[in-house]
């Protein structure tokens, strides 16, 4: 509609001239929006966090045991399988990796806590993270460890002490280890903290049952080789005591575990759905009450010659304005809460445009749906009643 043809913005005026009602509506929509942002943010953050390290692996293909269900229950397989796969013409290099949860003693208060230890040969590339690559040679000395400074604080003030120049020593599985450097990986849903050691050191701290075999084999392909083709070929050739994934499949496999084998996805989606329902109820109450209160006025407009479509448009626009006005503060508050969550839980909970769009779409449909229900009240506006 051209600007000159516009009319009095009745929907807008109805909203702003009833500030208390507007405030209640916006509080309700904002609350629903924040709830949805939080629940969906947590859900995605948890799924994302479960693959923080997976994403960093310097690999095209990944070998795991078929008994492995997820990163918190990694089974071992014979290292020979990795060597075998080197025979493939497209495979350029490999890195055997050991993966176990071990007990780390907080050097400050002496309490122990389970930490994820990765054992690898410092000469082999492990993670495509420059600071890891730079510091890996430090692990050639036995009893040295690279500590993930983004591990949860319960592991002790390791990073602070290390930066202050102190030599940080602690006990892992009863062995004395010394922090040789700090890396930045981040905790995941399964692991509160991470540390990297050489395979020699790993042998001294790994639980006795798991000292044979490796949990993970990383393969790097020649330039130009298609990972999917090689993955299929290797998976066919290698015996069934090992499974081959591309890196993307490996990441998806891990995420899928958390999605399907746990209630996380369901719980948080349910939480978001509840936010949606609560929002619907509040907006409907507000709009329905608004239409009911103004019924004589709507009837007057109809008597003046405004059509039902004009009035439906007013209610629909009220819904639209409520959606926009309610969404913006929810977005802002969610940004703040996300930052708070990142700081306190170190989960990668970020505002991504997809979720921002999804929540807006949910709020919009919530408001328009409620407006639609409220419109049914409009048919009660009989212009013949007003004389």
């Amino acid at each position: 509609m051209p600007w000159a043809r516009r009319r009095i913005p009745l929907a807008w005026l109805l909203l702003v001239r009833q500030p208390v009602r507007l405030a209640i509506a916006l509080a309700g929509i904002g609350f629903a929006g924040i709830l949805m942002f939080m629940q969906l943010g947590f859900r995605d953050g948890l799924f994302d966090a479960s693959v923080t390290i997976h994403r960093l692996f310097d690999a095209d293909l990944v070998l795991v045991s078929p008994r492995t269900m997820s990163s918190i229950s990694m089974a071992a397989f014979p290292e020979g399988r990795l060597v075998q796969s080197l025979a493939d013409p497209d495979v350029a290099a490999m890195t055997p990796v050991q993966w176990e949860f071990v007990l780390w003693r907080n050097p400050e208060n002496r309490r122990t806590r389970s930490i994820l230890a990765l054992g690898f040969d410092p000469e082999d590339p492990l993670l495509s993270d420059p600071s890891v690559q730079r510091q890996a040679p430090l692990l050639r000395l036995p009893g040295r460890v690279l500590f993930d400074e983004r591990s949860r604080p319960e592991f002790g003030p390791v990073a602070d002490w290390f930066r202050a120049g102190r030599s940080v020593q602690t006990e892992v599985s009863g062995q004395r280890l010394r922090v040789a450097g700090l890396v930045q990986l981040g905790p995941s849903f399964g692991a509160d903290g991470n540390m990297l050691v050489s395979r020699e050191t790993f042998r001294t701290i790994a639980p006795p049952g798991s000292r044979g075999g490796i949990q993970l084999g990383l393969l790097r392909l020649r330039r130009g080789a298609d990972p999917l083709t090689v993955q299929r070929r290797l998976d066919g050739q290698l015996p069934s005591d090992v499974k081959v994934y591309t890196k993307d499949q490996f990441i998806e496999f891990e995420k899928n575990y958390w999605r399907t084998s746990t209630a996380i996805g369901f719980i948080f989606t349910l939480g978001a759905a509840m936010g949606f329902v609560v929002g619907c109820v509040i907006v409907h109450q507000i709009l329905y009450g608004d239409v009911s209160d103004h019924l004589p006025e709507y009837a007057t407009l109809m008597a003046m010659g405004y059509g039902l479509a004009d009035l439906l448009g007013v209610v629909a626009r009220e819904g639209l304005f409520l959606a926009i006005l309610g969404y913006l503060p929810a977005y802002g508050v969610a940004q703040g809460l996300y930052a708070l969550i990142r700081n306190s839980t170190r989960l990668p909970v970020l505002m991504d445009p997809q979720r921002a769009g999804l929540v807006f779409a949910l709020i919009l449909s919530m408001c328009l749906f409620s407006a639609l229900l409220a419109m049914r009240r409009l048919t009660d506006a009989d212009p013949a009643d007003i004389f």
Partner: protein
Amino acid sequence: MTETPSLQPVIQARGLCHAYGRGTMRRQVLQSIGFSVASGEIVLLTGPSGCGKTTLLTLIGALRSVQQGELEVLGVPLQSADRERRRRVRRRIGMIFQGHNLLRCLTAEQNVQMGADLLPTLAYGERRAVARQWLRAVGLGDHLRQFPHDLSGGQKQRVAIARALAARPRLLLADEPTAALDGRTGREVVELLRRLARDQGCGVLMVTHDPRILDVADRLVTMEDGRLMPGALRQTGR
């Protein structure tokens, strides 16, 4: 639906009947009403309470569908007119109600512009100017930004008149517009209504109980028990 030439009647009713309710509850309220109002004419309708005046007004205002008889308003036959046609007729009729029925959340100026907004050809700024001009015409040029809440009864009724006239109606229907006003204010409001309607050449049909304002009419019509009184179409002293 062409414009009616000014000499043609704006209202023409023949054998108009209306009943409320069905079956045993059915009550005949209007019985073969026949009369007409010419363009630019001011007609007052009086009669005892419950005799059917408001019902007649809602029929003429195209707010109800005609049950029986013929009714032509502004050249449009309203018998068997559908909802949309009745709405289009309503656009050309100004209505003033007993209660002022202003929109609470709009200022006086915005309320009047709700009337002007029905004019399809004018730009927003022009419609706004029309609204101001009408408010000045009813003597409320200083109250443009006040809400109905802050206006007196007479002022509200004057805003309602401005709103009704802002849509450039060819016919004005008013149902006891002075009922909520004291005698002097009521008189002022009706005088104003008469002057403005006359300037616009717009026919007026006004229901009233107020004996003090009978003399503003060109004609007086009296109703009793759903019928027009015989010989009721009498000229007033004007």
